[in-house]
């Protein structure tokens, strides 16, 4: 276990460096002269030259890279080329919005998936099982944007039930909740399936265990056996699945944000790339990559905490 974490941490160092090199190159590749962009169109050559010196653009590449790393370490990711705002500030706001969306999605999709998977396992090969499994296959086969466009078209536009553009404010306000409902439903839809499938397989597996037979032999009610004994043990792989699927969820989140104009990191990144706003794109990709390094570390840690048997492997 300790070895596993040490390995992960060691592996993160070169990866982090690689990610930083990538971000640096992205800025270098940007079309146009950054000094000119900062100086503005009406600046004289002297002013541009001075800004170039101030920005360190006259230094060798390695020195520039070192400066870049120390700037990033201090949370300075440069300024957007389009509207000259601080990239770090924009990203901080966008990260909150993306985190909100993911939490709102998990808040309904994980319980729903666990419930569906458990019921399917209990009634294995019955009608409910077939419906749940069909729903699960359909869920992983649907493009996120298809779900999003359908929900937007019916729940949002035709029946006027929910707003479908942008964020309505903090989550604890009614408007905030109303605005996040459709995006969270869309993103959750692709996640319920995998969770239900995993829970079903895991519960079926646990139901074969000796301690379940013992519990039944003790004369416990079937409900208690399923919920107290089977489900609790079956949840370990489900929790790891949620962690491992963070990347899958992010892919869905980027599309969902773009459909509902949700002001998250994904939408910011795509917009920046399409507009060739390299500092913003660099910041968004950099922070997403670092977020993933951290998520992977946390999942590894959780593995050991949830299932002590992992430590002995």
């Amino acid at each position, binding site marked *: 276990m300790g070895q596993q974490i040490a390995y992960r941490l060691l592996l993160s160092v*070169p990866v982090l460096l*690689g990610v930083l090199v990538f971000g640096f190159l992205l800025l270098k590749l940007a079309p146009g002269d950054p000094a000119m962009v900062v100086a503005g169109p009406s600046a004289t050559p002297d002013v541009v030259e001075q800004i170039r010196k101030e920005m360190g653009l006259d230094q060798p590449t390695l020195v520039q890279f070192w400066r870049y790393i120390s700037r990033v370490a201090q949370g300075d990711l440069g300024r957007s080329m389009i509207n000259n705002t601080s990239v770090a500030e924009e990203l901080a706001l966008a990260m909150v919005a993306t985190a909100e969306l993911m939490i709102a999605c998990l808040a309904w999709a994980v319980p729903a998936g666990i419930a569906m998977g458990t019921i399917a396992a209990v009634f294995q090969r019955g009608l409910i099982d077939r419906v749940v499994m069909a729903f699960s296959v359909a869920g992983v086969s649907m*493009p996120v944007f298809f779900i999003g*466009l359908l929900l937007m078209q019916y729940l949002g536009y035709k029946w006027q039930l929910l707003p479908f553009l942008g964020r309505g404010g903090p989550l604890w306000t009614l408007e905030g909740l109303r605005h996040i409902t459709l995006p969270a439903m869309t993103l959750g839809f692709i996640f319920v399936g995998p969770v239900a499938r995993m829970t079903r397989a895991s519960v079926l597996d646990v139901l074969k265990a000796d301690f379940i037979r013992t519990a039944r032999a003790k004369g416990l009610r079937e409900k208690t056996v399923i919920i107290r004994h089977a489900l609790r043990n079956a949840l370990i792989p489900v929790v790891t699945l949620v962690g491992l699927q963070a990347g899958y969820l992010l892919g869905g989140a980027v599309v969902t944000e773009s*459909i509902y104009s949700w002001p998250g990191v994904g939408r910011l990144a795509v917009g920046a790339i399409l507009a060739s706003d390299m500092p913003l794109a660099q910041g*968004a*990709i950099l922070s997403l990559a670092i977020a*993933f390094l951290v998520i992977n570390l946390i999942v590894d840690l959780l593995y050991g905490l949830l299932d002590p048997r992992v430590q002995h492997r």
Partner: protein
Amino acid sequence: MTSTDIESSTPLPRPVGLLRRLASDSTVLIAGGILVTIVAASLLAPFIAPYDPYETGYAPFIPPAFMEGGTSEFLLGTDQQGRDLLSRLLYGTQATLLTGLLGVFFGGGAGVVLGILAAYFKKFDPPIMRFVDVLLSFPAILFGLAIAAVIGPGIVPIIIALSIATVPDVARVTRSTAVVVMSQEYMEAGRAIGLSDRHLIIRYLGLNCIGSVFVFLTLRFGQVILIGAALSFLGLGARPPMAELGMMAAQGRDALFFAPHISTIPSLAIFMIVLCANMLGDALRDALDPRMRNM
């Protein structure tokens, strides 16, 4: 690898009567039939498409023939620029399938090479597997964003992103199969009669690993198509006026509330392709390993 290594010297599973088992499964027949029809239709697009997919001269926003206001002239209606949707759908399916196939092909190829090298040359094993771990820590969508940021949006960055996303898993599957193959007696025999590394790797190792990699890629194909479609939908893929399903769905967004068919029809096509691919993959996995049926 010593010959006393019990776990890795177990013989490879032989799929006996695999095709017969698959053919008796009604899911396989239906999903396979639909998929074959879709692929054939997209390949025959130049011959069966009623109109030029780029011809813009017709009335825009005509609904499909089966809906109110539709005409039999345009079976699936026209899009926002007055192009025949059926023709664009056929060509778009071709582009979408080709993008996915190329991604799986290049990614799968690179993965097989890495996996076999890691299994055959012990000294390459740690660096290759570390590299694979690194690739695994980032989601496909992030590769898509990063590559599109460097070389600009287009079909090529999508194919590269899909390839990179396919490499690590294929490398792992290949390596685990190759390690088992390495412990087989014929490998020992081949080495004993003095065959070259190249011959052993290609003829002995490679050919014996291809089967499991193929099964794995079948399982993954649906997901690869979905990622590609998502990247195209975001505008990072095919450039207009080219027809590609994800991009067509994105272009139909502006007309969503009065001509929903423009985005619904390509989305539905992606859904059908991925659904059939996933069902076929599941059936293939069940047929190869009946113990997995409950998964």
